[in-house]
């Protein structure tokens, strides 16, 4: 502490190890991006974006899984977002501390830790078989909705908790009902935080492969789906399919598919960061 006292050797070594560990993460990230772009270079072209699956790696394209992923992410969001926000509002704004509340709360944090493949098994039995949706876009979307539901709930709860109680009290004191207070004051104030959570959960759903494989398999199809009852291919399952093929060229096809997926993820994350940045400073009390 005092000036002139040098750091001991032990401290220097410790500090250096911490530094290496920290920057190791950065190095890994750079290596990941570099190696994938290296493998994809020359393969990611207009032909790849507009072609249907093929046994010939030169002719294989990403169109069908791309359309499939857009369908799935759309329906998943439509289903999961209202329910997730609803559940969070119920927990934070309607339930007072009670045994029931802690049961629901513990349940949600445990759901967030259930491996996604287990949700796939639930979706396979519940949506594919019991509800007779088959191995369809609908079954896949509902399954993914269950996967991201706890993420949306937890993010929304955090956003709601950040709204100061004084706003609620002021609204109640003016004769507003609980729902009017939630709709006119709490939700608008929490919206940036909720939107950030929603977008990040969409990103999670977009990259999720395991439940989709359980629900829909990894088979290829040659037509683009036009109904929620159609079969599907999705980006992550197509990437899995290509990566696990023996021909070396399919590794390049997989890399090109990964780049497409990563582009979507970057767009979603950029949107989340923008919302956080633009609204983060404005709402102060």
């Amino acid at each position, binding site marked *: 502490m005092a000036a002139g006292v040098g750091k001991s050797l032990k401290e220097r070594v410790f500090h250096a190890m911490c530094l290496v560990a920290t920057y190791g993460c950065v190095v890994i990230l750079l290596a990941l991006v570099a190696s994938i772009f290296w493998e994809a270079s020359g393969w990611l072209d207009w032909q790849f974006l507009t072609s249907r699956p093929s046994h010939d790696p030169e002719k294989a394209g990403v169109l069908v899984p791309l359309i499939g992923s857009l369908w799935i992410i759309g329906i998943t969001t439509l289903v999961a977002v209202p329910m997730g926000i609803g559940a969070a509002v119920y927990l934070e704004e309607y339930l007072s501390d009670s045994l029931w509340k802690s049961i629901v709360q513990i349940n949600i944090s445990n759901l967030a830790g259930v491996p996604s493949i287990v949700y796939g098994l639930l979706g396979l039995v519940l949506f594919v078989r019991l509800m007779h949706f088959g191995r369809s876009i609908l079954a896949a979307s509902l399954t993914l909705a269950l996967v991201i539901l706890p993420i949306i709930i937890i993010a929304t709860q955090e956003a709601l908790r950040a709204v100061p109680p004084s706003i609620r009290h002021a609204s*109640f004191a*003016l004769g507003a009902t609980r729902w009017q207070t939630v709709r006119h004051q709490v939700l608008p*104030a929490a919206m940036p935080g909720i939107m950030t959570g929603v977008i990040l959960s969409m990103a999670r759903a977009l990259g999720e492969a395991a439940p989709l494989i359980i629900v829909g398999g990894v088979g290829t199809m040659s037509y683009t789906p036009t109904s929620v009852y159609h079969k599907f291919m999705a980006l992550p399952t197509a990437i899995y399919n290509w990566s696990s093929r023996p021909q070396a060229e399919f590794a390049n096809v997989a890399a090109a598919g990964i780049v497409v997926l990563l582009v979507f993820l970057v767009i979603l994350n950029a949107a989340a960061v923008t919302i956080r940045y633009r609204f983060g400073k404005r709402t102060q009390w």
Partner: protein
Amino acid sequence: MSELEKPMPEISVADAVRDRVHQTANISTSGIKVKATKLSVYYSDKQAVNEVTIDIPERCVTALIGPSGCGKSTFLRCLNRMNDMIDGARIEGEILLDGEDIYSSKTDVVQLRKRVGMVFQKSVPFPKTIFENVVYGPRVAGVRNRNRLMEIAESCLTRAALWDEVHDRLDDSALQLSGGQQQRLCIARALATNPDVLLMDEPASALDPASTARIEDLIFELKERYTIVIVTHNMQQAARVSDKTAFFFQGELIEAGPTTDVFTKPKQKRTEDYITGRFG
């Protein structure tokens, strides 16, 4: 207490009573607006208010004074049932508003809060426009007509002595107003539900002396129409604005009576000790 809360620290409370610009209402001739009988409040197992019985005279200013944690704010929040919001709060006793029990099962809490408006210690403007802040109460009550809302906004802002300052920027964010303006906006907002009773929880404690003086003038004007109950830490303020004063200590009501009497010839030793600054 911050420096700002003591606008005239060198003047004694007794002086403040004598020098009050405004005439005291005769509380004995006023009707009783609110009547609390043996009111007790518990937070979980802790008792915050203990068997308080007091009458609040109509169209008068009643000040609740006492040291921090004495239960005066808790008592105030019982009058519009804001304590319902707190987990584990339990209330015993009776509060009659115009002779009706506000804690009876038939009472609509939402209606009660429209009749009993409230202004908080820290001004809480909603992050919306000035206009939307004022008309929030009527809006949630179902008033949609824009002209009607405009009329309400104008008359309430006028009453809160804010119209002249904001009439040309009603669509600006309320968060841009100064602290004193925000608090008057909150008063205007409370008036817009057309209440009979106005509860004020240390409305000027976060304001500078000039803004405090404006709020105090406003309180005096408002009592022509409204029954006002104000919680304050500041005894000069209680002496200046109120007609009746109630002294709370450790959850109990020690003494209540006409402000002049309580400040000049308190009956209880503890009241005297408090207002002469021996503790608190």
